[in-house]
């Protein structure tokens, strides 16, 4: 397409201008499609006529750290309730909360900290009281084989070591800061990443030597990174609250999904991923 329009553009200035306009339209389209992937078009609660039969799409906004376990739970939910579909929007809890208060159509919000959940409850965008469904602990992620011999939080302050942290605005960054403060350490990272997954990715790609992320993320990354426990992480355990949202397009199915997350089988999936029970 680009080749074709470029070739046409060689002939006359007028088609050059047309091609320019085409490029502008393409730019606009690509910009909006990337931010609008949480579309809940299929959520028509047509079969909610009294019976327990659930249908339609459940849209779940969940913290990036829940990605693996919630994806598994979503598949289990779809299997248990044929005709339903669970779609996820994983991201930094704060930006998810901001899109919910901004009016994004969602049924469930699972956040990585009470503070971000409070943004939603303060705006009265929740339909049920948030409940803590899991807790998460920090861990240091290092390169496979731990070539820099990192054994403690203090080792991260060594000079020449490239460490990434989450931004202080997102829960994993706030937790990391809390752990650092508790141990009286001062750490200058090379970057404050916008969510826990991008912090971990920088280590997976070997661009950074270490990152302070959640234990669950280290588990999920398999052997691409190595996890190092540190005692100060006990001072910065994060509670994960979940709530049904006001104006949920598919409230019945959403409630059933929240129930699954809290059920023993749901908890088994979550603890299997490294989460702690509340």
């Amino acid at each position, binding site marked *: 397409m*680009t*080749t074709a329009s*470029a*070739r046409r*553009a*060689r002939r006359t*200035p007028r088609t*050059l*201008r047309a091609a*320019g306009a085409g*490029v502008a339209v*393409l*730019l606009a389209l*690509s910009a909006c499609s*990337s931010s609008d992937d949480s579309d809940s078009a299929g959520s028509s609660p047509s079969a909610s006529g009294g019976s327990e039969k659930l249908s339609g799409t459940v849209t779940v906004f969940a913290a990036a750290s829940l990605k693996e376990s919630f994806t598994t739970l979503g598949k289990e939910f779809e299997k248990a309730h044929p005709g339903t579909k669970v779609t996820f929007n994983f991201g*930094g809890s*704060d*930006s998810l909360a*901001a899109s919910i208060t901004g009016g994004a159509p969602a049924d469930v919000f699972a956040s990585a900290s009470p503070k971000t959940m409070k943004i939603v409850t303060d705006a009265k965008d929740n339909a049920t009281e948030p409940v803590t469904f899991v807790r998460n602990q920090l861990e240091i992620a290092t390169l496979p084989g731990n070539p820099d011999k990192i054994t403690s939080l203090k080792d991260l302050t060594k000079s020449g070591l*490239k460490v*990434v942290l989450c*931004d202080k*605005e*997102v829960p994993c960054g706030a937790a990391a800061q809390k752990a650092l403060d508790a141990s009286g350490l001062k750490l200058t*990272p*090379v*970057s*404050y*990443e*916008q969510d826990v997954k*991008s912090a971990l990715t*920088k280590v997976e*790609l*070997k*661009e*950074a030597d270490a990152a302070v992320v959640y234990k669950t993320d280290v588990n999920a990354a398999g052997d691409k990174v190595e996890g190092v426990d540190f005692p100060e992480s006990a001072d910065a355990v994060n509670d994960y609250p979940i709530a049904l949202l006001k104006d949920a397009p598919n409230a019945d199915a959403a409630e059933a999904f929240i129930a699954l997350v809290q059920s023993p089988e749901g908890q088994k999936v979550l603890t299997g991923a490294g989460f702690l029970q509340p």
Partner: protein
Amino acid sequence: MTSPHDKPAAVADTLTGGPRRGRPRNRVGRGVPLPLLLPALLGLAFLVLPLVALLVRTPWGTLSDQLTSPEVWQALRLSLVCATAATAVSLVLGVPLAWLLARVEFPGRGLVRALVTLPLVLPPVVGGVALLMALGRNGVVGKWLDAWFGITLPFTTAGVVVAEAFVAMPFLVISVEGTLRAADPRYEEAATTLGASRFTAFRRVTLPLIAPGVAAGAVLAWARALGEFGATITFAGNFPGRTQTMPLAVYLALQSDPEAAIALSLVLLAVSIAVLAGLRDRWTTAS
């Protein structure tokens, strides 16, 4: 026979909406058909409304507090410095590239042109990932940069410039190439028959001839670099004072303090408008 005074201005005029001389112009209400006027006004409203909304929602009362924080100036300064550096890189590499595409016949030119314009349609985050794969510490080329020279680009200000240049340079190249193809090559040929080398002809004849197109392209590239977000946060990360440009600061502020994000957006908007408006006349009169 082409009219050399009109064509080079075409690109700049398209970009700026500047007036075309010597053409009859319609006045609103007299000659403008409704089927054109209505969508035109709707289009205008669509583009301007979000900017107006930003002004409406700006916390004017606390604005001065929001804007006097050192972080804001740090981010703004970094944004301006990096966008300017990225434009300089684009000029040094992009003008010769545009000349090559416009003046030299070589096999696969269409493909090369498509590749050059690819970053225009590529999502910037994809650009950032590609840059990491190429120039990251563990990247295809970056590995050797690190091993031989000890240079690593990610997480550095230079990394921001690289990311911005990658996204902004195509704007300069297509603008300059369009101007070059519209410019009459016979002036260059005349110069070479009079004994000038091809490079001298380019420097002394072609470059002054296409100056408005280069200026237009440079400003476009600068504005694009200033607004660059995806490739920057992916490739260069986010560290205040080193890699945190204004768009990154806006994004992260939005997560905890929407008012601060609005205030920061306003600054970026003001700077962009000032530059685009300030340079408009220069392009259009230069031709």
